[in-house]
Each structure stands twice: as C-alpha cells, then as structure tokens.
C-alpha cells in the first residue's frame, strides 16, 4: 500500500487532499466562486472578456416565469436547458430537434421524445433548486445547443464532446477531451461514463483514452480509434483557456470548451474544483507541471504568452512529459 503511494508520488500524481489544500485553498478565494458556480455570471464575464460562449436564449428565474418558456423556445429546433448552479452535468436537458410529425414533441440528445409540458416540469424543478447546492432556488438557462464539429463524429455517441483544460495560475497545464458514450447519456462527464482522452498540449492531438479509470483505445460505442485526432483551433483554445485566470481570478481552474460546427470553440463553463481524472486520461501526474509553473511564475505574462509557454513546455515530446 505504502509502495503504491510512493509510486504515485514518484509519478507526480496529484491527490484530492493535496489539490484541495495546495491548489484550491491557496489560489481560489471563496468569494470568487460565484463567478464560476453561477453559469449566468460566467457567461457575462466571458462575453465581456471577449471570449465566445453559446448564445443565451433566455432565463427563467422564478416559477411564475415558467410560461415564458415556450416564448423563449419559440420556433427553435434545438436548445439546452440547464441550472445556473448545477454541477456534474446534473439537471441538463439537451434538446436536439423536434419530432417530424408532431412539432410540439421534442427529441432529446438521447433520442427520447418529450412533450413541452415535461420540459416545463423539468424547468420548474431546476428553478425550485433540485439541482443546486443546498436546494436553493435557482435560475434555469435556455441556451444555444452546440452542434459539434464533425471532427468528433466518429468518437462520440450522441451529445457534445467537450475539451477540459486545467489552467494553473493562468498557464494551461493539462487538457483532455471528453467523449460522450451511450452510458453517459450523451453527456460529457467522466463519472457518468464518458470516455476521457488526453491531449498533447503542444500539438492539440489526442492521446489514448480512459473509461472508468481504465485505459481504452477505441470508443466503446462507435469503435473508432481515439488517439491521433487533431483538434481544430488548438492555439485559440489554449489562449481562451489561459484567459480564464483574468476572467475569474481563480488560480486553479478547469475550463470547459466545446467546438461548434458554425461558431468554433465556445466556452461552456468554468470549474473551481476540476476533477483529477484528467491525469489518468493523460497517463501522467499534474504535480510536475505545476511545479514548473510555480518556478517561472513572477513575470505577469499575457494570456497568449502563457499559452505559448504551455505549448512549448508541456508538449508530449518535450522533456517534462
């Protein structure tokens, strides 16, 4: 047992306790949490900072505003309803289209058909606080449904794959792409069964994948190879992620980005307590890169310089990996 711990330490694997004590408590002051915990606020901040986000169609902040839902939806075919204070993918409904025969019937990402009344009921649960921390009343967002770039078509089962970049003190240190599976119900959250694949920060190419903490080479549903995919606009993605520091003020941050077919990379959300499975997806611990950033920190570099540093230092071919 001690041996296993020593091995992990040697490989620079970051544990939950260490992450909480050394990263989150040190660099993420609590009063800044609302900036990431409240998706409405995150969206506003990201927009003012000039980052691209999925367009907001409308907000429902109160049970009495529920009837606005159909107005907000209007004639749109696809949209997403999510709680402003949700986490872990809880309470998110992704509507991808309408039934061909009955237009008042919506098709979810999972293929299930639902009536508008069911959407309303769900929204009312969201507003009632079922998915927010401590059950506090919440706001429901209705936003643009990302149509993912065909690059991922082969390796996603329904739903939108998203890219997670860990940004430490403004420097992107690790990234992965999360690929929805049948098991994850089209959502890109690893603990729901999505596949995670590490990304070479230098090139933006995917490395191998993991599913439930085990290494996989192929997507479980589509059978396509996971490694070697080139993510488009990688430089832009890294720069946007690096800008997360300026937007949120948080020193340890997970930035979630999706690539839309029409709009390119969009910031979906940011996370003050990003999970550690990214290490498994990259077959590598975070500690070494964090120490590297700590060493050069001091000169307040601009976001693009920090992204460049990451591309140079943390590529799969550089010495550190």
């Amino acid at each position, binding site marked *: 047992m001690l041996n296993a711990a020593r091995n992990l330490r040697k*490989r620079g*694997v970051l544990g939950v306790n260490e992450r909480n*004590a050394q990263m989150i408590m040190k660099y993420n002051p609590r009063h800044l949490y609302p900036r990431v915990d409240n998706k409405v606020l995150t969206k506003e901040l990201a927009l003012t900072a000039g980052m691209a986000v999925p367009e907001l169609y409308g907000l429902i902040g109160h049970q009495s505003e529920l009837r606005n839902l159909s107005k907000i939806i209007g004639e749109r075919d696809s949209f997403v309803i999510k709680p402003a204070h949700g986490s872990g993918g809880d309470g998110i409904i992704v509507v991808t289209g309408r039934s061909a025969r009955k237009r008042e019937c919506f098709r979810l990402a999972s293929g299930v058909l639902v009536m508008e009344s069911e959407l309303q*009921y769900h929204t009312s649960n969201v507003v009632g606080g079922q998915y927010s921390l401590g059950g506090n009343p919440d706001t429901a967002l209705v936003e643009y449904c990302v149509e993912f770039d065909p690059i991922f078509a082969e390796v996603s089962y329904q739903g939108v794959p998203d890219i997670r970049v860990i940004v430490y003190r403004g420097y992107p240190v690790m990234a992965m792409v999360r690929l929805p599976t049948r098991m994850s119900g089209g959502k890109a959250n690893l603990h729901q069964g999505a596949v995670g694949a590490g990304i070479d920060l230098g090139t933006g190419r995917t490395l191998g994948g993991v599913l439930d*903490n085990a*290494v996989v080479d192929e997507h479980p549903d589509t059978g396509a190879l996971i490694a070697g995919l080139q993510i488009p606009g990688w430089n832009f993605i890294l720069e946007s992620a690096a800008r997360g520091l300026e937007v949120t003020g948080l020193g340890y941050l997970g930035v979630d980005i999706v690539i839309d077919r029409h709009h390119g990379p969009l910031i979906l959300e940011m996370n003050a307590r990003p999970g550690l499975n990214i290490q*498994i997806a990259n*077959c590598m611990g975070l500690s070494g890169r964090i120490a590297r950033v700590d060493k050069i920190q001091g000169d307040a570099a601009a976001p693009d310089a920090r992204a460049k540093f990451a591309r140079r230092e943390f590529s799969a071919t550089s010495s550190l990996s």
Partner: protein
Amino acid sequence: MTMRYVYLLAALLTAAGVSIFAYKWQVLGFPLTDDQETPAWTVETSVHFDAGPGPIKASLQIPTLTPGFGTSEEYSVSRNYGFSVNYVSGGRQAQWTVRRTAGQQTLYYRIVVYEDRNSDSSDTTPPFPLPPVINEPLKTAVDVIVNDVREHSADAASFTAELLRVVNSPSPASSVDLLLAEVHSPLEFVKMMTTVLAAARIPARIIRGLELQDRMRQTNLIPWLEIHDGVRWRFFDPRSGTENLPNHFLIWCRGDDALVQVDGGTNVEARFAVQKNFIDSMAVAEQRAKVRQSALVDFSLASLPIQTQAVYSVLLMIPIGALIMVLMRNLVGIDAFGTFMPVLIALSFRETQLFWGLVLFTLLVALGLSIRFLLERLRLLLVPRLSAVLIVVVLLMLVISIVSHKMGMETGLSVALFPMVIIAMTIERMSVVWEERGPADAIRGGTGSLVVAAVAYLAMGMNWLEHIITSFPELLLVVLAVVILLGRYTGYRLTELVRFKALAGD
C-alpha cells in the same frame, strides 16, 4: 509557514489536553475504566445506654484528622434526637440531644473512609508541655527514669524509643515497677508514658484508633502513642517501642478524654463494627478533588445536573464520530451523502443497536425511495414533494412499528427514534443522484454513508472510550488537534491508490 502554525496549534492543544488528563489521572486519581473501585470501610459506632428521666445529651468523639484516610461520607442514625457535630479541644465531637425519652437507647454514627496515601495530617505544632505535677514517691521514680533514658538518647524520637524499651523490659528496674504500680489498662499505660514524656518536656499525646480489617463485629479502640519532635508528629507502638502505625490504622480520636459521655443516661457503652466494601473510584476522585478545591473538577461535567450530564455523555461522543468521519473521507476516501449525515445516522443507531439500525434504515430509505419515484410521476413542485416524502416516511415508520410489534419483534418499535428529517433528506439526496448519475452512484453513496455511520457508531459506542471522554473531556482537545492535523493531510486517499492504479505502474 501556515504549516508551522498548524503544528504549533496541534502541539499546544495536545499538551493542554494531555497535561490536564495526566493531572486528573495521576494526582486526583480519576479512574481510567469505569469499573474501578476503591476499597472503603464503613465504621459504625453504636452508643448504648439506659435513658434517665431528664433530658439527655450524649457526646461521642469522632475522627478529625485521619492521616492515610479520606472520608467519603458520615452520618448518624438516631430517631428523635437532635444531632450536631461540634469542634472541641480534642477534635470533633458528635452530639445527640433529646428532651425526654425512656428505655434502652441506641445511637449510631457511621463513617465511610477510603485509603488515601496523599491525605496528610496538617496537624498543629503543640507548645512544650509544662512539667507535670507529680506526687511523691512517683515523682522520684519519674525523675530517675527520665535521667536514665536521657543518658541513652539523642532527641525526642530516640528518647521515646528508649523510654518504651526501658518500661517494657522483661526485668524492669524498681523505678519502673513503682511507675506502673497503678497502671491497669493499655490506655492508662500510654497515659503514664505521656506524663513521663511531659516531664522530659516532650509533647506527647494518646491516640486511639482502629486497625481496619475486612469485617469486625465488635472491636475496640487501640491506644497508641504520638509524640512531636519539633517538626512533625510521630507514632510509637507503646508495647514494642518501634516507631510505626499498624496497617490500615484509622485514628479515631486523640487525648484521653472519655470516648463517649452521656448526661442523663446510665450503663453507657460504645461499640465499633467495621465492614469493608468497595466504592466507585470516580466518586472517591471527585471527593478528593473537592477537598483540594481543584477548579478542574469544579468546572467538570460532574458539576452539572444529572440530566444535563446524560445529554453530554452523548454529545461528547460526537467529536469521536466527527473524527471517524474525517478519517473515512479524507484518509480512506469513502463517498458519503452530506458532511455530517453519517454521524447523525450513527447517533440514531444508538437507540436501535447496529444490526437493526442498518436493517431499519435501509428498509425505510428503500421504501421512501420507491415512494419518491412514484411521486416523481405526479410532477410535484420541489418543496411539496419533499414534504410529501416526509409525511410518507412518518407513515412508513408507523407501519413498520405496528407490523413488527404484531409479529412480536419489539426492535421494530425503535424505528420511531430515527430522526426522520435525516431519513427524508437521505431519500431526497439519493433519488437526485439516482436519476442524474444512475443507480450505481446512488447506491455507492448510500452504502458509503451507512459504512461511515456504522464505523462511527461502533467508535462512539465503545464503553471504555465513552467513560474516558466523559471523565476526561479535555482529551477532546487532542481529538481536535488530530482533526486539525488531518486537515493539512495532503497525501493520497486510500481509494485513490486504486483509482490511479493505471498511473502507478512504470
């Protein structure tokens, strides 16, 4: 930097907790286990006499300073008599008074003493005695003996030892024969010795006491000799001349005043009976602390009303549960709902015992969950739905109680003692997780909560631990120190070793 403060704080807390604990344990003698008992003797003095026609006043000498013994309680049994304890020149005196009574009377005085090596006799230093007035021919005999003994001794103690040797010699000198001519009892013998010692200007007095044994029906006070050497009182065996006190010797009274005196009564007789028994060490320790006026005990749990004490004996164990919680979550890494939910569940297990607690809790949550899913179909708003779950839980509890009672299983009744808010919250949390992350996550979280609760329950239910914590609440400072240290534990969790197994290989 912060790390140093953390260590410092933890060290301070530990030091404070441990030193108070050590003081109470070693000095005040607080027992470490609750079955520890201290031997104690109940000494009963019964005073018998025939009442005369007039008012009656009976006085009995009772123990005042008892080196080697502590008093745990004393009381008198005497119907119709007024009772008081007075301080007179020789020490304490119990006094019974009655205006009119008739026939044979018996008065009881009881005292419970326990051995206490630390109970010292802070006795007064007496003045040098005046030379006693002795009539001839005794005076010459005393002078001869004093001169003779003084020749062979150096100080008060050796004088006393030599004197006792001389007078007890098998072939006594003529002066000794003269001295002891009128001595007929051990008491008179010791009294004569004090007279001789007074002639040599050595303060001395008679002490009378009991050699405590397991059980003595009828026993009498043994006279002993006590002299003051200018610094402290010393005890001498009047017969052998050795300096000692018999084992378990309880000094009852000092001086040669009559042990008991009854004004208005005749045929007075006093008897002693001794019975050894055991009393709770805790009570002894508290008694001892009271005598020393130790603030530690004044401000202890024992100073609270009994009912509040009972509440605290539960409350004080919660930190142990919290410690278990920290260990299980930060060291082991078990998933559980809520931060303190498992500890609260563990508390409710106290009423049901572990096995039935687990069974009933699981049953209730499972039933509640299924109801919750039925309610889900009705599309109720959140708060009404939660309230509906709560109501259903109450009804379920009632049904379980009634059904198990009808089946003759009384344990089912204890389900009513579960805090249902906790159950309702567990159900709600679990159903949300169930829907959103699937049954696997929900069941994992639920099982984790129950595992943590069970471990916390077992830890909080350890009798010796409960005893230790309730008698030494300062040890919670040590628990606090441990929790603070764990708060800075940045190593891996046990479950992470499994989780990152793929990364551990080379």
